[in-house]
């Protein structure tokens, strides 16, 4: 199994980050179907290259399967499908961002498949604008804010809600395997 791990060491130990940037925030940005999204870097555990996963029967379509993360069983979710976008062939830049999600029943580790990682953004709280009510591919409840950078706009995602297991699977009985409508 070939696994590529991007080292996040240049960012420094995660505990130190918060202190260094004082009130500043750091976001990891990634691309998905031509749009840029950002997630709080403190939620990110690691970034891995795409490797085949084990399919889970009767799971919603956006769950690609489960992978072995050093002995732990971690579900892998395709963000394109989660957002109801069309899928593409996985390429060399396709990566899995492993995030720690805080849920009602404790912390869970979840992998999210994205088209590719882009950058790390240093932001001040003042840079973040409120999310718009419409006009995005992503359901607005998952967007915690918007940031304008030189290259365009970055949508900041609320990972805890987006990848909340309760949210993703609780309603699954009602609408099996259906990606969230755009």
């Amino acid at each position, binding site marked *: 199994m070939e696994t590529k791990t991007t080292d996040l060491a240049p960012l420094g130990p995660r505990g130190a980050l918060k202190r260094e940037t004082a009130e500043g925030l750091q976001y990891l940005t990634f691309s998905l179907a031509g749009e840029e999204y950002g997630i709080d870097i403190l939620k990110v555990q690691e970034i891995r290259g795409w490797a085949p996963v084990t399919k*889970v029967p009767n799971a919603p379509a956006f769950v690609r399967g*489960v992978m072995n993360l050093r*002995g*732990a069983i971690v579900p892998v979710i395709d963000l394109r499908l989660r957002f109801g976008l069309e899928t593409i062939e996985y390429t060399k830049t396709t990566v899995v961002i492993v995030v720690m999600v805080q849920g009602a029943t404790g912390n869970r580790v979840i992998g999210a498949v994205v088209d590719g990682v882009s950058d790390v953004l240093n932001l001040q709280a003042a840079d973040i604008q409120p999310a718009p009510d419409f006009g995005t591919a992503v359901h607005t409840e998952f967007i915690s804010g918007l940031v304008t950078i030189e290259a365009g706009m970055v949508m900041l995602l609320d990972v805890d809600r987006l990848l909340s297991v309760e949210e993703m699977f609780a309603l699954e009985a009602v609408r099996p395997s259906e990606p969230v409508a755009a």
Partner: protein
Amino acid sequence: MAIDIGQFVQTFFEESFEGLDIMEAGLLALSPGATVDLEQINTIFRAAHSIKGGSGTFGFREVAEFTHVMETLLDRMREGRMPVTRDAVNTLLESVDCLREMLVAAREKSPVDANRVEEVRERLSELLDAKEAPPGDTGGKPASAAKSPSAQVAGWRIRFRPYPQLMHSGNDPVRMFRELADLGELTARADLGRLPRLAELQPEDCYLAWELELRGAVSRDAVAEAFAWVEGDCELEIEPLAGDAPAPAATAVKAPETAAVPPPADPKPGGPREEGQQGELMLERRKGEDRRRGDRRASVAAADSGSSIRVGIDKVDAVINLVGELVTTQSMLSALGEDFDMSRLDKLHEALDQLDRNTRDLQEHVMRIRMLPVSSVFSRFPRMVHDIGGKLGKQIELRINGEQTELDKTVIEKIGDPLVHLIRNSLDHGLEPPDERIRAGKPETGVITLDAYHKSGSIFIEVGDDGRGLNREALLRKGLDNGLLRAGEEYSDEQIYDLIFHPGLSTAKQISDVSGRGVGMDVVRRNIQDVGGSIQIASRPGKGTRITISLPLTLAILDGQLVSIGQDCYIIPLLSIIESVQIRAGEVNRIPGRGEILRFRGQPLPILRLYEMFGAEGAVTDLEKGLLVVVEADGRQVGLFVDDLQGQQQVSIKSLEKNFRRVAGVAGATILGDGRVGLILDISGLIRTNNAAI
């Protein structure tokens, strides 16, 4: 003394908690009214005594004082000066709880609920005072009449001359005096006559002697009791106090006066009638306390689970032996590897086989260290049955079998609560009140059985009662009301009984303190399933209900058979596989509404096409081209249709739920030899869904 006693504190706590368990078990075995089993009381007394001694030594004064009161009460029972009443036993049981809380608080250095301690202690003293009074009102033995006057003297003069080495054995006169001071008014006079010059003084020796005067209605035994630990280390004289009390004869006259002073609220006038009221009052109070006690008990359990397990030395020795063998194999292998050529390939294979065997044995034995007898769970039930039975006014006998059956520690921890629930249900709903039982022609005393046994790689625990059984009609109605069942269809008993595991269904007419809120049985089932077990119900109206829980021996590792379905690989626990067969054309019948059935060894065997259930792509769909794996769970068989068998492998079970959620038909996941994730099939779950579908 240079010894740091801190290191023994942990041992003290462990032993004390064990002592409490012994006391509890002993108290429950005491049958009020009947002839008192002296040995039983002695056992309880000894346990209390050790706790008292230990807590004094370690400076837990409150504990020591509290235990002392209990001990006094027990002592009187032992000497037959006090009858063993239900009331007394209940109070003592409560004291055991209270003591347990105090010890937990002492261990965790958290504050004790002083009110509760005081309350229980008061009740103990009430008992003491009431029963010390003239015999007749509670039917004390005649012996008590003869004994009590001698016990009620004005006081005692004690000459206490310890030998120099007294303190070497960990005894401290100060502590003993404190104990005496609890009994009555104490004056101590030290005799410094033996005190050497400072230069000659050995700091660890005891040079002092004392003359003590203890005033109060104290029995000689109680005084001697304080010195019980220093017997042989001192000269001790105890004699009745003369002096201002004119003569021994006069003390008897004086006694009632002194005895009457301590209890301001005298319980005597009401006689037996009031006793009954007191009993009721206590039940009321208990209700409120139950919850609190539950919390505290939980905290004891929680603290325990983190700490340690006791392992028999034989188990450890076995592991050490195996490690020795492993080392031998390792050196054999490294010798082989040093100058290896193909001619020694056979030897290498041999050594690898040995390594394989060693690893398996070692694993098995290390697992065994985690195995605990199920009695550690069962032991709490006699008390629970006693308490709840009393509260519900039912007569109940609890029969426990097979408590030595061993189970993995994790499983043991997880099944406690479900079992509590099941037994409560049996107590509350299952067993009828005595009058109803008599009307039904059954013995007045209801029987709850708790069995544990080992069968074919699983542990079974059965909770049975000889009560009224499940109410099929009521369940059916509920099921129809809630839309869980469809009207006009035939349902098997099993399907209907299964409804009690459904959240929100309770057929109890009244919600009681004990159970009936309709939450619970679903949680019970979930907890059992969490540890990889399953639960089944059998019930006969008027005869009783039997709930059988089957549990895996161990959680961590199982032997698995790898099977392929399309591109996916699944694992079937080897233990549940009966055999694998190829299907020939014409052997399979399609039965409308029941799917495909294979006539297999004269029995109809339902076929489950796994690729259909799991939505696998590229799987073999022609029954003749694949394989049928016949599996069994919960006493039922099905054939799982798969593409092919792969290898067999020992797999360690990983949780799928930790980061994901429960998946129907899948018991867990594991990491395969090539690093990929493999899913382990949940056979009993598959069989259940198959049954639900047809």
